[in-house]
């Protein structure tokens, strides 16, 4: 879809196969392209890239790609938050919608080979990181330690429960979860996600580590503070930015911050870059 003569703005027809509710207002949409050739072009995506999703009569929006390229399934996980995502949530299996992409730089997973990976996510910030986690687990031998720290407001708002239970049980991955407020179903840790770093028995190496951080702005700020205090350099903290986007290909101008167009130069940036771009997260 990125060929010279191709119309980069033209979405390709896709069909919704099934939906799965994750938490309140957040749903995963499993889909496939009508034309297998479109899927072949799409298949080379990288963790951290995104796609533009069109819903008939409502418009288009950028959506993270939660699946890893090593998985066969195509799906989006989307919170109902505005007019187009509302319309997406109203779709039934069998309905058609449009997809174009993948866009953006993605996480340079090859460059992280041999390093320890620390994933820190809050709320639905886990959506783009899910891709990297599954990717890293698939290529387990290429990376050092893999740690996942995840926090949500309440136990009801923990995303990807089944997947994360599986990660926690898997060999070679340490998975820690916390909630801000517990209820009767929860006997795990309570507190912000950064408090997981200080749990008894938890050690977070920083010597050869890259930390992936994704979550709401307030969580992001505190986690960054914690990681820097632990001695992680700014250049080895990576995140993916969200911005209002119309085109996804560096033309419409909405996502331009500092010297970067988030859609083509990002959405993945190191914290060092983010700080220099000089805008709120």
């Amino acid at each position, binding site marked *: 879809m990125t060929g010279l003569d191709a*119309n980069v703005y033209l979405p390709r*027809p896709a069909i919704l196969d099934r939906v799965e509710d994750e938490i309140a207002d957040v749903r995963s949409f499993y889909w496939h392209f*009508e034309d297998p050739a479109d899927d072949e072009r799409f298949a080379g995506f990288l963790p951290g890239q995104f796609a533009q999703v069109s819903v008939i009569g409502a418009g288009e929006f950028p959506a993270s790609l939660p699946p890893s390229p090593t998985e066969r399934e195509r799906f989006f996980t989307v919170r109902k938050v505005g007019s187009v995502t509302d319309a997406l949530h109203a779709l039934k299996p069998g309905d058609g919608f449009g997809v174009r992409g993948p866009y953006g730089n993605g996480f340079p997973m090859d460059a992280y080979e041999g390093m320890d990976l620390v994933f820190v996510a809050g709320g639905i910030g886990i959506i783009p990181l899910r891709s990297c986690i599954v990717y890293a687990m698939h290529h387990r031998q290429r990376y050092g330690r893999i740690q996942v720290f995840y926090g949500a407001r309440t136990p009801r708002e923990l995303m990807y429960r089944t997947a994360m239970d599986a990660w926690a049980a898997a060999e070679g991955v340490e998975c820690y979860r916390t909630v801000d407020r517990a209820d009767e179903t929860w006997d795990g840790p309570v507190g912000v996600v950064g408090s997981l770093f200080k749990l008894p028995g938890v050690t977070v190496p920083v010597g050869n580590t890259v930390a992936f951080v994704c979550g709401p702005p307030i969580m992001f700020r505190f986690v960054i503070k914690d990681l820097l205090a632990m001695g992680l350099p700014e250049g080895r903290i990576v995140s993916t930015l969200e911005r209002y986007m119309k085109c996804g290909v560096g033309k419409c101008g*909405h996502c*331009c911050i500092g*010297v970067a167009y988030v859609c083509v130069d990002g959405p993945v940036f190191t914290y060092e870059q983010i700080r220099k771009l000089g805008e709120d997260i």
Partner: protein
Amino acid sequence: MRARLVARDDVLRIVDLLRARGYDVVAPFMGRGRDTWFDLVTDDNRSAVALHVPNPYYPPKRYVLPHIERLMVLRNVNGRFEAEAQPETQRLAVFGIRSCDLAGIKHLDRFYLGREYRDVYYESLRRGMFLVNMACTDPEQDIGPDCFCVCADTGPAARDGFDLQLVDLGDSFMAVAGTPQGEELFSEPIFARAHESDLARRRDVLAQARRSFRANTSWFTAAVRAVSTDSIPEKTWEEIGNRCLECGGCTFVCPACTCFTVTDRAIGPDTYERVRVWDSCALNGFTRMAGGFNPRRAVHDRRNRRFFRKLSHYFVQRELSVACVGCGRCAAVCHGDIGMPSVVEMIRRSLAEASQSQVAKPQGPMRAYR
């Protein structure tokens, strides 16, 4: 340089020649006072085409990036998603485009056709264009009080980017071809041989024109440096922001602004058209995301953004041209007087104040000197 002479009375024949070659021709016209516009030339209005004219506020950029442009038609066909696109083509000549607007189109070329993604809609309109540049030489009509192309290095006569360029020598116009298509016209009998002395006259006329510019923005390049090195005090951006009425006028008249929004609208049962519409970084909702979070909250953040995007050295390198062409339209339309020339002046003043306050600090030996 391929140059010819065209007698003054024959210059509008160029419009006829282009029309005969299948081009729709647009050219400037003049109404009352400062009211000027580009319009399609017809048999009826052909004689009213204005050669020297204050540059219309609505830039000819719209012929290659229309204010509203259909991108595709989307259909819901029994639940299936269908998208169909047919980028418009045209065979359009712009007669009398000014050097600043030409530089604007050159900038848009680099922005929309350069880098990893090409914009097929832009390309499709652009491919069929023929550009006749008129050098700005008339101090009364062409060169307005806000014009500063001499500082932005785009005028008064463009160096490239045109198919044909005209410079008014009085009794005749010197025509210079910039492309083989432009040179092809020289086979027509209205084009006569030019001599060394005509080239000298052309140089004189342009030198005279350069001296007729009134707007003093010679500090423009220094502003580029100041913006690029992030040395402008936040207070200055706040002052600029305080004067912004958030109307978006500056961006809509700018020949080098590129931003657009995209929206879908119903055009029939289960049928929608997706259009792109010029958008403006001056508007509050420009960066607001679904859910309400807006990373650029204050108005001065947004103004800072516009001038940073236009002047920062990084983007100048990235596009190989400055996103300000010196046309002065933003200065003419801005109600808060923060067009580019004023902003350059405010930046200059704030840096001068900053360096003065440094000098004014008590420094023993310096004081003894006075």
